[in-house]
């Protein structure tokens, strides 16, 4: 009966999803962040992989549960289920492959369709070590991110440049949103189910969600 086994030593649990095209380096970003490992020969993810890391933001211990989803199209049907309860998302593209950047729009749309309204989103240009193969100029991506109100970082999982920073920024953003939201809740108090702390599964869709799904999801 050792509760420590179950690691209750954190204040918040955030679920974060990593999305983006196949081969942009999501899995390596995650392994770099959680275990500081990099595998040059990593295989494409099947379904989803998880990893957690606890970091401290503003004196609070935050456990980030990161879902590394498969980027391949054939897993697309499953991946949409992974968005449930996510409070943050990182859309990853490969700076040396323009197509992965162009698909960010698609990923963003999918995220908005499937995830919470107030999910925090970061845009990540990975493989910044491949500057000589750069296909997406930083300025344009930065511009795209700011227009969509996304956080933006260029990272390199290979030489671990900016990886920690990117995750930290997102987690901090989520934390700020959550703590602000909680204050709001304290005032209204009737909307406890919408608290973003922890994954909540609402069995009855709110009118807002109804509207959204009817307008966007065809299948």
């Amino acid at each position, binding site marked *: *009966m050792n509760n420590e086994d*179950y690691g209750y030593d954190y204040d918040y649990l955030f679920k974060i999803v990593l999305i983006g*095209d*196949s*081969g*942009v380096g999501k899995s390596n970003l995650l392994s770099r962040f959680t275990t500081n490992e*990099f*595998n*040059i*020969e990593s*295989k*494409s993810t*099947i*379904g989803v992989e998880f990893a957690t890391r606890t970091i401290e933001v503003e004196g609070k211990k935050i456990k980030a549960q990161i879902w590394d989803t498969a980027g*391949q*199209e*054939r897993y697309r049907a499953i991946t949409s289920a992974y968005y449930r309860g996510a409070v943050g998302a990182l859309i990853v593209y*490969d700076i040396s*492959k*323009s*197509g*992965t*950047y*162009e*698909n*960010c*729009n*698609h990923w*963003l*749309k999918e995220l908005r369709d499937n995830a919470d309204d107030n999910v925090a989103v970061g845009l990540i240009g990975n493989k910044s*070590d*491949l*500057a*000589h*193969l*750069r*296909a*997406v*100029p930083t*300025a*344009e*991506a930065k*511009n*795209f991110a700011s*227009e*969509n109100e996304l956080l933006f970082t260029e990272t390199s999982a*290979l*030489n671990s440049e900016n990886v920690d920073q990117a995750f930290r920024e997102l987690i901090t953003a989520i934390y700020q949103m959550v703590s602000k939201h909680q204050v709001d809740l304290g005032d209204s108090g009737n909307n406890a189910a919408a608290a973003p702390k922890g994954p909540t599964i609402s069995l009855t869709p709110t009118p807002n969600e109804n509207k959204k799904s009817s307008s966007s999801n065809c299948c």
Partner: protein
Amino acid sequence: MSEQSEESKRISQQVTALSTQLIESIDKQSKLEEKLNHANKIIASQQPSLDKYSNLKVEFEKLKISSEDQQKELDNFKVKIRRERELRENAEQEVEKLSKEVEDLTATLFDEANNMVADARKDKYTVEVLNTKLVEQLHEKDNLLETLNLQLKNLKKVLQTVEDENNSLIGNNRYSIIQPDSATTSSSTTSLEKITTTVSSYSQNISNMANGIIYSPIISSIRYDLPLYEEFLKFIAVIPHCRTIKDTSSDSKLIRRLVNDEINPVLKLDNASGLGWIVRKTILSTMMEGLVVVEPLSGVNETFQMGNSTQPPNAEASNKNESQSSMPKLFKFPLTSPPIALHEPCSFCGESRDDIIEHARMYVLKTQNKQEDGTIMVTNTFPLCHWCLFKVRQTCEIFAFLRSLKTGVWNLEKVTMKSISSKDSSRFSVVTSAIRQTKTEDRRSKRMSFIGGLTKNSSAINTAQVESTTSMEITGLPTTNIQRAWIQLCKLRSILHWAHVGIWSIDDSITSKIGPEIKDPDDKLEPASIEANIKITKKQIEKDVESIISENNQGESFDFESSASTSGATEASSEEKSIAGESETKVHASQDNSEHQSANALEQETKNNFEEVTKKDIEQESESERKPKEAGDETLTHEPNSISPKIEEENKEDTASSKASNEDDENGTAASSINETDDVLDNYTDAND
């Protein structure tokens, strides 16, 4: 006379009587007086006593009074006492009552308290039991989760293995058509390293020459005995101690040789009119440090595919439409805009034509400078045409790869300058080792069941595998990560050479992805990961699958490199394949005989192709020569043993290609000749039948 005598006598008598009476009275009086005196005296003496007595009497009276008072008082007291006693008795009764009450109360209190404690204990106990059960359940769930995770992991590995096998199968069909990856929406999959290819029908392959491969060597034919490889080993030995890859120049000539022999002739920096004199001198070292950025003027340029590559996939196009209508723009220019280019000539080759996309200067090379505070500043930008873009990027790729060797992601084996100089490094030059062999055997047996499930005729395939155990040795696949890294370097160099030859893009050709073998810490039972497993067994699997295909396709061979072509193999059954595997094993198992046997094979082939009539002769011939060897090993019976130089001479033209691969064989990198031998032997068995 008588009367007077009598009267005198009588008077005398009376007088005597009276005198005696007097004396007596007097005496009595004195006595009385004395008595009186005496009494007086007593009285006088008794006077103080009398006084005392009276005093006492007074005192007695007084005392009597006081005694009475006291008596009264006593009575009062007695009354009081009685009253008090009554009070006391009352009080005592009351006390008794109270104490009894208190006792009762205490008893009830304790009862109640005990009850409460008991209740609490009961509650606690139930909670504890519940808790224990819950924790048990949780552990159970944990175990379950762990098992499921493990299972999932293994399943994923299997899935990956299957995928890899498929890929390697496809990759091995080197004449297959490369199609745009229509399965995925992203154009990202058409990357340099990872090209998903799909095999369409065989007949289409021939007609579709546009997608044919010009030339590409295979991994097993890479040499590890070149001086440059030794320089590469030296480079690896010193790189951990060097700050930059350029610092290795004192110990290893690798960089110098690469730059002088390969990069400079391609880039022709001396003729690069667009670069300044200083830039020409420094640009290579800037590239080596990774301080160059090569990027399009706008990301929109990347949507225009170069060279002969195909249209972007449909899904992408629909994405574009979508993004045009609703999404915020990705680039500075709308996606429908033409590519953005500069009018200035290319700074490397001076290209100034604006006619086609490949001539346009759509990219810029930015050189950067690292400031003292660590920030990076762009110092210069140079426009690039597409051809130079390719060359510059490829040069940078080589340097980037060399830099990556320093980071440790390649998991390179340890080598030291000492070991290289003392020729200890031979183990990095020889591609096989005994340990490797035993390991692969283990793995192979694991693989067999899997492969068996894949095939209809699993037993035949399995035999083929068992017999081809030793053929693993001669596949020429790298056994160390250093060798894998060398292959990667060779690949990058060859791409650079292709750029020099003059191609627009390599995006649409086949390259195999080469990476280090990294041991999976989770795999405790299997020392090497399945990943590596695949690598080692790849060749074998290819062969197996090939035989399956040939089975299914009625022996239609996919391998054009084999000189036997399709003619002999058409009737090849899987059983014959297994025999082929056997004899192949023997061919390579005995190095002494290999040359000899290849010659035999050639001879057999030629006979088969040209002299159906001589079938019997061969049989006789071979049988006669076979017998002495049979004693040693029964499997040898399937080997062709006769040499007939006469026939070989007659068929010189046909065997020319075989001879070339025969030379390969001699070099110990005989992978390409395996298939050949396969087919040859098929033919042989055909002939024997």
